[in-house]
């Protein structure tokens, strides 16, 4: 039995037979439906549609009822989208719902539904003059100000006022209102009554309904993998660096920022923690469909410089199901960033500009001059040495009467300002016609450094980070089925840094003694010590010259999309080509000035100087430049179609990538990094309730030998939308969503550790050199840097996960995901080969490492409107705990010294047991073999008492904590009341350690390690300064067991008291007020007259408060406190729309 649905010429309620071959019927819509013969049709209709076209809905009614449907194609164009949710309704009820507010009506004939236009019958029945009023709010219930409300197909319209209200006189009863607002989805609604309340979904919110997944988009409800989207409203921050802005914003991200220096402040950024102990832990970064994974490498990270204003959505692919198609690169998770695109309409301009100040979250406090001298004397006396500083000298310094001969300098205060300026602005324009749409954007970011320097010698050495972002995303509909897309993004960093690196400067600010020399002498001479006597940090930053760093990044993507419905419906394809260019060009001008040291005063009381350094007249010049380019080609065919209750989708793609380091230092680095892959996906859904998805990537990497280059990475996942089941109906009012999903699969990684490549080849490179002849001519040697090993293959990650999504009262959403990962075949350098084989010093790789990683991530969001107050609460948490399963380490004598079974980068050290009380205490305990101990020194536990009665290198063990946290979380709220809105966002990490014994503070050529923490360390003329925390110490007079510092000595990193131990292992957990903002929305007719639809003024702050048990420096810096701290910002800004 066959039923036909035919379209009819306007106002011709007759049945005509139409033949496919007739050109006249191009105007007509033809739908052919076949059904099994003999089937008896139920009269009960179930529909669940959101913004579906009337045609679609009618075709569903037709298939469920067995009725034929007749309509005129032109009428259907007038139909507005249908949102309907019905279970087991009668046909009449269903049709009433569907046609509610439609400019169309219907009649039921014998097994036939005839659709016709209302205009003829009803328009005549009602008076033309009608008025409609209403309120337009956003997803969170906040009134939207300045929303354009237009009557469709007319020029009449208005905009919403400051309360989001509008009033409009309608020309006719069936008028359709078009609500449009930049950043929000445009809505068309028929004005059926006197009031019409409208909720506009922001584009980002909208993308929650349709989620960006690997190589495509999926309806959120149909997603079976673990995919999280970032709420872009939370990304409105003045932080220039995207990876830092993401911390705590979405479940699954764990990020640790370890420097605040502008341009070099990108974080260690992971998805679901760390699963490998060799090679890269960074996720794959996809920007506009193209791999751009240079997150943590040079050029400031390819994606970190994208202005968040330009981003439409950020998706996080966390499990094997969502990442398997990335095969080679997906093991660490995938971050997909999609930039904004144009929308049809008049040009809409959005302007954001803000300015503010940046400062440090926490500045370490050092000893002042008097404390320094007294404590140094104490330390020397403790060691049986004579005091260095006489009482007279200390008194003279304390008096401050002669700051040139008896200086007392707080170097950190001298070098760093409390705050420095910050400005940024973004201007973007969207618009276009049906055929061409554009998104154009320009932004500027300018941050000035915190150094107390000035323009003294025709240059200002202060840090100045300037970034210019340009973006042009163009869409062109070449034909009805062909869409061209061109994305061009340029991110140009033009930064100036002082001649001394920020790390070295922090080192010096920590290290330099407060009493040796002043900053400058009264006649302007710069003070400085003799060689080996340290440096004057202020002089170094002021007079060492400067470096101009220009880092241009250009990213381009060209895509041709072709719908292939003519072949089979639901089929489409695209081809994509991308070319990225990255570069860095540094010009360095290095300076050296005269330095002087005053030794005393002459008879007249004038200072007597010695010149300690002879400067150079001109700044030196040197330059470096690096660059690379990445090319990417992809062809993609995908299919998505609904057959009754069955939804079937498929996708297959081919891609190639070629990354070339143009300025590589060696041959191996200069060989392009190539990858090639085929990937596919099949999705199947039944009644939107049972979902199944299979993904696979077959990817190749040049890193392996022929025959081993390719790996297959499959995954399978399924979902069950319980809330769509009929038995769930009684719970529906409470549970708006209940969905269960699970996945399992394999993902790969070809990025082996230590920057090594081609591990199957024995590689020869520079080794030790030899010298011969009378004058010792050197001859460069070559040796095996890497011993080739056969049969190497991919690192494979076996990932499983289950997820639960719950929606309550349409207000609260909870997503909980549990995951487990077993990383196998980790390519590690062999450690267990006996040295007698002679391979030490060369890399020997093997696929034998194994690591586990398990955890949970969850997010919660609550939205409500309580009277005039709009409220949004949100939070997320990620827990991940890894364990090294196999590491090829030599079988250690003591199990507690094995890294196997421990977590990634777990701290090792001794177990401290308080301070020695007195000599009998020392005598009664095992001898500590590091150096002679005295009362007040740290006691350690003997871990192998069965073998010896001494504390030595056999007594260190793993201490349970790592610098990488197990917990990462973020939570916040926003409230809107009338014109005000306020939001606060907290972020934190927990179960994380930092080893504050100074070993993390690397001398890096500036001096000894551990400066600032290890008291008075350093071999130079002046012992280093020390943190003021050293006041809290054990002394013979006050032998406190709870003192922070042990007995003072002039110490070094290898002293008994400063070994890595539980004494110095500090809790690095923190919570900080990461973002806070207070805003006010202005609306007035005056503004509207000048074309400004909306003006928003706000105050915002970043990292305003930090709560941590660790007080000495910002705990996020980790074990090294002597570096550029995390910054805090306070800004005032304005957003306007025209």
């Amino acid at each position, binding site marked *: 039995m066959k039923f036909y649905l035919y379209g009819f010429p306007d106002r011709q309620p007759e049945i005509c037979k139409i033949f496919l071959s007739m050109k006249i019927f191009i105007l007509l819509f033809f739908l052919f439906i076949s059904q099994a013969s003999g089937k008896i049709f139920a009269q009960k209709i179930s529909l669940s549609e959101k913004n579906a076209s009337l045609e679609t809905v009618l075709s569903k009614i037709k298939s469920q009822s067995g009725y034929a449907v007749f309509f005129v194609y032109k009428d259907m164009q007038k139909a507005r989208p249908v949102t309907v949710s019905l279970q087991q309704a009668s046909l009449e009820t269903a049709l009433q719902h569907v046609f509610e507010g439609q400019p169309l009506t219907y009649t039921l004939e014998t097994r036939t539904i005839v659709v016709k236009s209302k205009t003829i019958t009803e328009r005549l029945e009602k008076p033309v003059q009608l008025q409609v009023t209403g309120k337009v709010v956003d997803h969170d219930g906040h009134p939207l100000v300045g929303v354009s409300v237009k009557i469709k197909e007319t020029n009449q319209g208005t905009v919403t006022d400051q309360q989001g209200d509008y009033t409009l006189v309608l020309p006719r009863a069936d008028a359709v209102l078009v609500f449009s607002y930049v950043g929000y989805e445009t809505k068309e609604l028929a004005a059926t009554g006197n009031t019409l309340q409208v909720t506009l979904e922001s584009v980002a919110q909208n993308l929650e309904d349709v989620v960006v997944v690997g190589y495509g988009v999926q309806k959120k409800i149909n997603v079976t993998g673990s995919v999280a989207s970032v709420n872009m409203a939370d990304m409105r921050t003045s932080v220039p660096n995207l990876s830092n802005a993401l911390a705590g914003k979405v479940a699954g991200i764990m990020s640790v920022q370890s420097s605040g220096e502008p341009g070099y402040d990108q974080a260690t950024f992971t998805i679901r923690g760390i699963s490998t102990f060799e090679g890269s832990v960074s996720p794959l970064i996809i920007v506009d469909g193209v791999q751009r994974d240079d997150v943590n490498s040079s050029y400031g990270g390819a994606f970190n410089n994208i202005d968040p204003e330009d981003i439409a959505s950020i998706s996080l692919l966390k499990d094997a199901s969502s990442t398997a198609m990335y095969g080679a690169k997906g093991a660490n998770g995938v971050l997909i960033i999609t930039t904004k695109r144009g929308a049809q309409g008049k040009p809409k301009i959005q302007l954001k500009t803000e300015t503010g100040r940046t400062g440090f979250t926490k500045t370490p406090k050092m000893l002042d001059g008097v404390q320094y001298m007294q404590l140094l004397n104490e330390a020397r006396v403790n060691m049986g040495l004579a005091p260095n500083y006489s009482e007279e000298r200390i008194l003279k310094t304390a008096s401050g009467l002669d700051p040139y001969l008896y200086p007392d300098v707080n170097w950190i205060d001298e070098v760093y300002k409390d705050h420095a300026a910050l400005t940024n602005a973004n201007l973007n324009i969207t618009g276009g016609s049906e055929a061409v749409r554009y998104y154009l954007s320009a932004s500027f970011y300018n941050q000035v450094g915190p150094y107390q320097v000035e323009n003294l010698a025709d240059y200002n050495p202060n840090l100045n980070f300037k970034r210019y972002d340009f973006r042009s995303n163009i869409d062109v509909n070449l034909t009805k089925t062909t869409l061209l897309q061109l994305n061009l993004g340029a991110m140009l960093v033009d930064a100036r840094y002082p001649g001394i690196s920020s790390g070295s400067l922090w080192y010096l600010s920590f290290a330099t003694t407060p009493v040796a020399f002043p900053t400058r002498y009264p006649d302007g001479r710069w003070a400085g010590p003799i060689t080996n006597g340290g440096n004057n940090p202020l002089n170094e930053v002021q007079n060492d010259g400067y470096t101009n760093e220009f880092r241009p990044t250009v990213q381009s993507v060209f895509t041709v999309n072709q719908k292939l419905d003519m072949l089979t419906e639901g089929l489409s394809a695209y081809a994509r080509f991308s070319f990225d260019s990255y570069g860095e060009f540094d010009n360095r001008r290095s300076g050296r000035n005269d330095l002087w040291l005053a030794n005393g005063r002459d008879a007249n009381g004038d200072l007597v100087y010695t010149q300690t350094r002879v400067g150079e007249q001109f700044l030196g010049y040197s330059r470096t430049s690096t660059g690379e380019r990445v090319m990417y080609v992809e062809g993609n065919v995908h299919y998505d179609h609904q057959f009754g209750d069955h939804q079937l989708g498929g996708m297959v793609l081919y891609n190639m990538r070629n990354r070339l380091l143009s300025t590589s230092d060696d041959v191996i680095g200069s060989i*392009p990094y*190539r990858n090639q892959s085929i990937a596919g996906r099949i999705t199947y859904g039944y009644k939107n309730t049972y979902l199944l998805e299979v993904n696979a990537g077959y990817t190749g990497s040049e890193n392996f030998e022929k025959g081993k280059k390719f790996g297959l990475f499959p995954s399978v996942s399924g979902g069950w939308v319980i809330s769509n089941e009929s038995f769930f109906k009684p719970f529906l009012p409470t549970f708006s969503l209940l969905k269960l999903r699970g996945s399992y699969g394999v993902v790969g990684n070809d990025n082996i550790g230590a920057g090594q490549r081609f591990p199957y080849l024995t590689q020869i490179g520079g080794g030790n050199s030899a010298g*011969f002849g009378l004058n010792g001519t*050197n001859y460069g*040697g070559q*040796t095996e840097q890497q011993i080739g090993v056969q049969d190497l293959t991919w690192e494979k990650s076996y990932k499983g996960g289950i997820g639960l999504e719950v929606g309550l009262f349409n207000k609260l959403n909870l997503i909980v995901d549990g995951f487990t990962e077993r990383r196998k075949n980790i390519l590690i350098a062999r450690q267990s080969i006996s040295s007698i084989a002679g391979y030490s010093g060369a890399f020997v790789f093997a696929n034998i490492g194994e690591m586990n990683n398990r955890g949970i991530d969850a997010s919660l969001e609550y939205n409500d409107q309580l009277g005039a107050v709009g409220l949004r609460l949100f939070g997320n948490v990620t827990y991940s705990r890894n364990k090294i399963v196999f590491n090829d380490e030599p079988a*250690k004598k003591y199990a507690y010294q094995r890294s196997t079974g421990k977590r990634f980068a777990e701290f090792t050290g001794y177990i401290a047991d308080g301070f020695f009380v007195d000599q009998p205490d020392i005598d009664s305990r095992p001898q500590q073999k590091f150096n002679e101990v005295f009362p007040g020194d740290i006691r350690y536990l003997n871990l192998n008492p069965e073998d010896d009665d001494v504390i030595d290198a056999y007594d260190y063990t793993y201490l349970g904590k790592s610098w990488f946290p197990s917990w990462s979380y973020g939570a916040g709220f926003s409230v809107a009341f009338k014109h005000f809105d306020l939001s606060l966002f907290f972020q934190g990490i927990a179960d994380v350690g930092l080893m504050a014994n100074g070993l993390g503070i690397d001398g890096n050529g500036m001096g000894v390690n551990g400066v600032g923490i290890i008291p008075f360390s350093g071999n130079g003329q002046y012992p280093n300064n020390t943190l003021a925390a050293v006041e809290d110490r054990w002394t013979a007079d006050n032998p406190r067991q709870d003192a922070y510092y042990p007995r003072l000595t002039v110490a070094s990193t290898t002293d008994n008291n400063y070994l890595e131990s539980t004494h110095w292992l500090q809790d690095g957990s923190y919570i900080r007020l990461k973002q806070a903002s207070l805003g006010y929305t202005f609306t007035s007719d005056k503004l509207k007259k000048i074309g400004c639809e909306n003006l928003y003024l706000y105050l915002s702050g970043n990292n305003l408060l930090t709560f941590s048990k660790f007080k000495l420096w910002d705990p996020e810096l980790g074990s090294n406190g002597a570096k550029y701290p995390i910054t805090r910002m306070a800004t005032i800004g304005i957003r306007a729309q025209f």
Partner: protein
Amino acid sequence: MGCNYLDKQPDNLLTADMLWQTRANAESYLYQIYGSIQLPADDYTVLGASDETSCSVQGVNVRKMIAGNWNPQSDYWNNWGSNYSAIRQTFVFEENIVKMPDDIISQELKSQYTAEVLFLRGWFCWKLLRQYGPFVKVTGLLSLNEDYNRYPRAPFDECVAYINTLMDQAAAGLPAVWSSSANYGRPTKGSCLAVKSQVALLAASPLWNGNSRLSDFNNQDGTALVPQQYDAQKWKTAADAAKAVIDLNVYKLFTNLDEGDATFDPYLSYRDVFLTNWNNEIIFSTNKTSDWYWGLEKRCAPAPGGYDMQNATQNVVDAFYMRNGRDIKDDLSGYIESGFVQHDDPAQWGLSKDGINRGYIKGNANMYVDREARFYVNIQYNGKPILAAPTTDDRNFFSSDANRDGRGRVEFYYSGKSGVGTNNNGDITGYGVLKNVSPASNIRLDAVPYRPFIHIRLAEIYLNYAEALNEIEPGNPDVLKYLNLVRERGGIPRLEEVYPSAVGNQGEMRKWILRERQVELAFEGDRYFTLIRRLAMGDADHQTIYRMNTNANDNNQGFSFAGYYTRTLLQNRYWDDKMYLFPISQNELDRNSALVQNPGW
């Protein structure tokens, strides 16, 4: 595009096979092996593990070592792996060089390089033997998948024999003298024989010859690793081995006459052995332009130009003879412990070349007056002008205001520029080391000229010979002859003229021979190994270290502060007999279950 997209082999990459296709690449592999020869310029042997030096820097490994604070996990100077890496490379080179076509590299060069590489293999084995004792004898390339638990250590005598075999094979393919100076730095026949002399002397010495402490030193299967009986014949072997080098007749002790000077100057003769580009006393050296000599001079130089790091002990200072060839404890020596000299050194050593009198100067403590020339070459004492400072300005740089007279006298006293009163890291013994420091250097500007690093020189071979011969034939005139050759170059009288009773008296002669070694080879790393092989390191004399009283506050009296010149105990070092051998790293034991640890560790 397509299937072979990824097959773009890194063909421009030098792989193991390609290494042996050009002469330059093959030679570069050999150079790498040469580069694995360690210059012990910064290790325990020179920085304070023996009684001649102490390191002023706290926390350095050598200070932990002498405090007994080390174990197999400490991995101090873990040279086990690096020597074996170099040994593996010698096998790779030896196997491949012969396969190269003659038109790329001549047969002659191939056999020369093979001989060199055999010498190098023997050299690395010798370094293992000296530091760790019996080693695992590896005689070919081992694969990655080898069962390393099957490789135990070889008995001591087998190790010695292996090194000797390699040295004999190498000597057969090497010339006695390189005809082209471009080859200086490569081993010669003499280099091979000299290593044999060193090995034989070690094998004959009490550490390995009848050492009852090592009688239970066995492999797990019971194989004894140490010869159980004393064998006097080993001294004969050692004497013969040293004599074999002497009999080559290609080496001679260097003097300043070799540099064209008219009159013999013991100071210059001895000092410039180390500072010439090349001389005939050198038996094996590393001729590499590198920064070892900068490091050495920086470490030795006093503050503020240098680090004051390697401090000579009073023990070694006292070992130097008086100019009359007598021990300072000898009543006839003329040594005066107290007071200050009122005139400059009449000998005027060094004046002819440097324009500066390098002996003592007016105002020096009497302790430093009339000492032998080698004392002034080796020891930087309080008030002695600094050497590595060529101009008046440079020298003034090292002086306090009161002493700024253009002479740059070093200030080790409490409040001096290098004193402990003003430096956390000031000189702790009151002495610095001057050997191998060049007057052409300017350490303030870190400018230091090139010189080869001498591993073996003739004076050592003479002393090896005298020592070994004295043990078997104390009456042999060669004992005195070769000892005296060394003394005479040092500018002191022959031994029999000063201490005639020593002649033919084995015990006394042994004392003077070892003293001569201590003085002549001071700060060259020999002292540590001599005390070790002689089982003398544990003696209280060598563990009780003295210094000047650098901690006494001079109250700004400076050089004339008499309280400074008081012998003061620096430290009683820790000693355990297990320290006669280095521990093998615990990591190595964990990787190879057949490996037994050295006794006591």
